[in-house]
């Protein structure tokens, strides 16, 4: 999971003791999220490294959740040693906050699986007996044997229904209590009625019983329910891992000068914190000492790093890319700009009209129809003067036949197949109903920095610069961690590097060194003694060698590979595409021109982005927001559906419905295609299920549905729906 790696790097310095729990038998337990664990070799290395430590009693890595659980004897080992052991083997691990675990109900999943086992067992055995009875009915089975078989069925089915039916009974009861209808009401009713009536039939020794129908019904429905819950649990655990990265710690400088790691929430105004180079600023504050550059791109979308010095304010969430800074906290964690953005996000979430999933919408219209039909059948047979038993049998047959077996499978199976296909393409589906919402979208809004562009500057005027200057510039740049320097060093790798002495970094200014006794400098315009050229949209570095005129290196953020093609592809699919950026106008205008985007806005603050989304929503448009920065997070929440790249800010990834990996933008187009295809398949599945009902319901109303017909109809419709959903995989192979 590469999206974790960046966040993990930033958190490497955190004190893991904050996350250790005590187990009942006095051992310490720690859960860690491990980045880059994806094969048998990795599992082995991770577990091997941990078990090799003195005092560790248990280490078990989970490949599905990318976490490892460690238990050890606290008297013999410190938690920090465990994290170090993992980093020594090449894995970055960070403590996973146990408070975040269990937001998804694991017990419920387990109970569903147990119910599924019971229902499967009962379905197989009741069918075994039922088939004999059906066979016996057409040949000659004596009444005693039939009665015996019916009692055996009852013996299996009654406890099985009582146990495995609980998920449906509970949900139906909950819906009825709040005076609502859901799909589970007719299911529960059909199962209970069919079982009760069959029991009565068994007691009076009648010819037909429906035990097989009620248990196979439960079995198929539980499969659908389990797949649905599983898909949501997976999305949830991915979100938990990302969320875990957000709970950060800060390095506090105590009044006596000692340093220790504390939780960000415990910071109070007036405290002093140390922000190491490459770390994020933990709280809003004022710089006391240190000169550095701050990358604010995640917060404001601004692509050029800002130079900071004592007396200036810095915001939580921004990245310190220069030298260490000492910051005096001015605001508590819950008052910081970062928290402000989170609050804006929550407001957007509440504002977003509660989306009703297609299955639920179908249920709203389907359940009353089923009940009306069953009641009508009962009334009809009474009116025709039939015995109450015949009337009730036929009414129940209608309930069983219309039971939404195929409907229950229609959405979850497609969802599982689509999610699997997207995961193989490097797209993580985080919201269970994301695909459904994406299929409806008609407008796409892109953020600029980090989304359409890579968010990394690249040298653009390399051809204007001589080989000697390039070599010298790259040699100086190689000693710095500034993003511009990194870009220059990467570009100048092939050039001969002169021998430099006494290289040092002047914080907030640039690099300085001696070249054969002559001072050379690489840095900002002031540092190199040059006039900054204002016309240029990107950023610059200047190289000054002795008395010669300074040389300017210009940098610009580069467009993601395939961005132009992806946008053309999206337009071809009927989307209106817009660019909405927090960056300055020249940079945005230039990129919009390059990519052929007519609709663009620059210098948009987070609230302005939301305003634009609301404006579009009011015009009836369904908007996809694609963004990466903290400043996009509220917009990601406010949009109909949202997508983030894997190197986005943690908060944005938490807010987004989909996350795509890799530098290319193609997965966005792929995701849209899969979403639309799966929506088509869902509709087809519904059509199949309804078509089958239109054929079977008249039979049931007329009283021709024997247990055999019910079982055949139900199983065949379920299997057809599953096979149809599998076509989503086949199409991909044809395309590849």
């Amino acid at each position, binding site marked *: 999971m590469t999206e974790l790696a960046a966040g993990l790097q930033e958190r490497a310095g955190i004190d893991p003791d904050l996350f250790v729990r005590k187990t*009942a038998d006095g051992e310490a337990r720690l859960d860690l999220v491990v980045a880059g664990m994806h094969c048998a070799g990795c599992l082995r290395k991770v577990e091997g490294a941990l078990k090799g430590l003195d005092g560790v009693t248990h280490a078990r890595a989970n490949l599905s959740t990318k976490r490892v659980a460690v238990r050890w004897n606290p008297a013999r080992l410190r938690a920090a040693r465990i994290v170090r052991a993992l980093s020594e083997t090449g894995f970055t691990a960070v403590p996973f906050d146990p408070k975040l675990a269990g937001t998804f109900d694991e017990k419920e999943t387990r109970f569903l699986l147990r119910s599924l086992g019971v229902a499967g067992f009962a379905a197989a055995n009741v069918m*075994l007996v039922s088939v004999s009875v059906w066979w016996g009915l057409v040949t000659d089975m004596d009444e005693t044997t039939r009665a015996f078989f019916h009692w*055996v069925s009852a013996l299996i089915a009654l406890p099985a229904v009582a146990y495995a039916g609980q998920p449906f009974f509970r949900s139906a009861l909950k819906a009825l209590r709040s005076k609502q209808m859901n799909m589970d009401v007719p299911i529960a009713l059909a199962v209970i009625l069919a079982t009760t009536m069959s029991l009565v039939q068994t007691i009076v020794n009648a010819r037909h019983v429906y035990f097989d129908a009620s248990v196979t019904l439960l079995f198929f429905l539980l499969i659908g329910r389990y797949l649905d819950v599983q898909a949501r649990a997976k999305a949830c655990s991915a979100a938990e891992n990302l969320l875990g990265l957000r709970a950060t710690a800060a390095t506090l400088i105590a009044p006596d000068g000692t340093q220790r790691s504390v939780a960000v929430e415990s910071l109070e105004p007036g405290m002093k914190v140390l922000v190491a180079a490459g770390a994020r600023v933990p709280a809003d504050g004022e710089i006391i000492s240190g000169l550095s550059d701050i990358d604010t791109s995640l917060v404001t979308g601004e692509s050029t790093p800002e130079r900071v010095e004592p007396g200036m304010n810095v915001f939580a969430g921004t990245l310190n890319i220069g030298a260490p800074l000492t910051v005096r906290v001015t605001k508590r964690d819950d008052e910081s700009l970062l928290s402000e953005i989170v609050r804006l996000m929550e407001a957007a979430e509440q504002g977003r009209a509660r989306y009703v999933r297609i299955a639920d919408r179908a249920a709203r219209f389907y359940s009353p129809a089923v009940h009306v039909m069953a009641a009508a059948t009962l009334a009809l047979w009474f009116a025709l003067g039939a015995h109450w038993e015949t009337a009730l049998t036929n009414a129940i047959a209608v309930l069983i036949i219309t039971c939404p077996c195929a409907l229950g499978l229609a959405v979850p199976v497609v969802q599982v197949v689509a999610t699997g296909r997207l995961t193989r393409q490097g797209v993580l589906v985080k919201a269970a109903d994301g695909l459904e919402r994406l299929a409806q979208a008609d407008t796409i809004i892109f953020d600029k920095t980090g989304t359409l562009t890579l968010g990394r500057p690249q040298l653009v005027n390399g051809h204007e610069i001589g080989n000697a200057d390039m070599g010298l510039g790259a040699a100086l740049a190689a000693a710095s961690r500034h993003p511009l320097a990194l870009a220059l060093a990467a570009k100048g790798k092939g050039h001969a590097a002169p021998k430099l002495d006494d290289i040092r970094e002047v914080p907030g200014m640039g690099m300085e060194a001696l070249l054969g006794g002559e001072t050379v400098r690489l840095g900002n315009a002031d540092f190199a003694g040059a006039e900054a050229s204002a016309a240029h949209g990107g950023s610059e570095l200047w190289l000054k060698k002795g008395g010669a005129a300074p040389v300017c290196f210009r940098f610009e953020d580069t467009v993601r590979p395939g961005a132009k093609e992806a946008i053309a592809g999206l337009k071809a699919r009927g989307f209106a595409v817009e660019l909405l950026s927090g960056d300055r106008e020249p940079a945005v205008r230039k990129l919009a021109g390059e990519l052929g985007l007519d609709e663009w806005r620059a210098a948009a603050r987070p609230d302005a982005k939301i305003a634009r989304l609301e404006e579009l929503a009011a015009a009836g448009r369904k908007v996809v927001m694609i963004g990466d920065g903290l400043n996009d997070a509220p917009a990601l929440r406010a949009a109909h559906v949202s997508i983030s790249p894997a190197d986005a800010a943690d908060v944005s990834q938490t807010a987004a419905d989909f996350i795509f990996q890799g530098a290319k933008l193609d997965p966005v187009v792929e995701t849209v295609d899969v979403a639309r295809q799966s929506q088509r398949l869902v509709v087809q599945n519904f059509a199949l299920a309804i078509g089958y009902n239109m054929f079977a319901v008249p039979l049931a109303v007329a009283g021709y549905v024997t247990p055999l017909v019910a079982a055949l109809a139900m199983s065949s419709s379920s299997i057809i729906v599953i096979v149809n959903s599998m076509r989503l995989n086949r199409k991909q192979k044809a395309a590849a």
Partner: protein
Amino acid sequence: MSILVYLVPAALLLGGLGLAAFMWSLRSGQYDDLEGAAERILYDDDKPESDTPDGTKD
């Protein structure tokens, strides 16, 4: 047909054993990490692994 009196319970008993085995495997956490289980089979040593993360059979 009286043979059924023995055969049907025998069939149910065998089915019940299967169900019990499933419940046991579920309890001991064998379905917690399906992806990991698929990879662990590639390990060379055949030593059995220990139990659930809490050390308890829940």
